[in-house]
C-alpha cells in the first residue's frame, strides 16, 4: 500500500488545480453557457476529489457524498440549461 500513498497527495493536488482552472472559467465567463459548463466540470472534478480523499484516509464515508454530488450536480446542470433555453422564449 505504499506506492498509492505516495501518489494520492499529488493526485489530490492535481484535481484541486483542475478545479481552480474550472473556477477561473466560471468567474471569467464570458457567456452564461460557459459558466454552466464550468459548474458541470467542477462537480465532476469534486466527485474525483472526494473519491481520492476517501482512498487517502481509508474510509468509505465519502461515497455517499460523491453519489449525492453526482445526482444534484446533474439536476443542477439540467435546471440551469433548461432555464437558459426557456428564458429566451416568450410564452
Amino acid at each position, binding site marked *: 500500500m505504499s506506492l*498509492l500513498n505516495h501518489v494520492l497527495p499529488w493526485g489530490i493536488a*492535481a484535481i484541486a488545480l483542475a478545479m481552480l482552472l474550472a473556477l477561473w472559467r466560471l468567474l471569467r465567463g464570458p*457567456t452564461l453557457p460557459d459558466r454552466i459548463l464550468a459548474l458541470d466540470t467542477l462537480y465532476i472534478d469534486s*466527485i*474525483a476529489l472526494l473519491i*481520492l480523499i476517501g*482512498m487517502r484516509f481509508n474510509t468509505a464515508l465519502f461515497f455517499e457524498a460523491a*453519489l449525492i454530488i*453526482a445526482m444534484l450536480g446533474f439536476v443542477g446542470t439540467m435546471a440551469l*440549461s433548461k432555464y437558459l433555453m426557456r428564458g429566451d422564449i416568450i410564452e
Partner: protein
Amino acid sequence: MTTTFLLDLVSSALVIVGVFFTLVGSIGLVKLSDFMKRLHCPTKASTLGVGCVLIASMIDFSLAGETSLHELLISLFIFITAPVSAHLMVKAALRDDPNIPRP
C-alpha cells in the same frame, strides 16, 4: 513481486491516468477560445478521468479487505447523465442558431 504489489501498481497508475485526463479537461476549458470547442473538455474528465479513479478506488478497497462496489454505481450514473447534460448545454448555447443549415 506479490499480487498485492501488482494491484498497488495498477491502482496507482489508474489514479495517475485519471487525474491526468481530469487536468487536461480543465486545461482545455481555460485554453480553448470558443464555447463549442470547450464543450468537448468535460466529457473527457467525466469518462476516463472519473472512471479510472473509481476503478482505482475499487481495487484499493478490495485490497483492504472490504469489497466495495459502490463505485460501479457512481460511474454508471455519470456515464448515463453526462451525455444528457452535455446535450442540454449545447441546446442552451445554440437555441435556434440560424448559422446551422437544416437538412
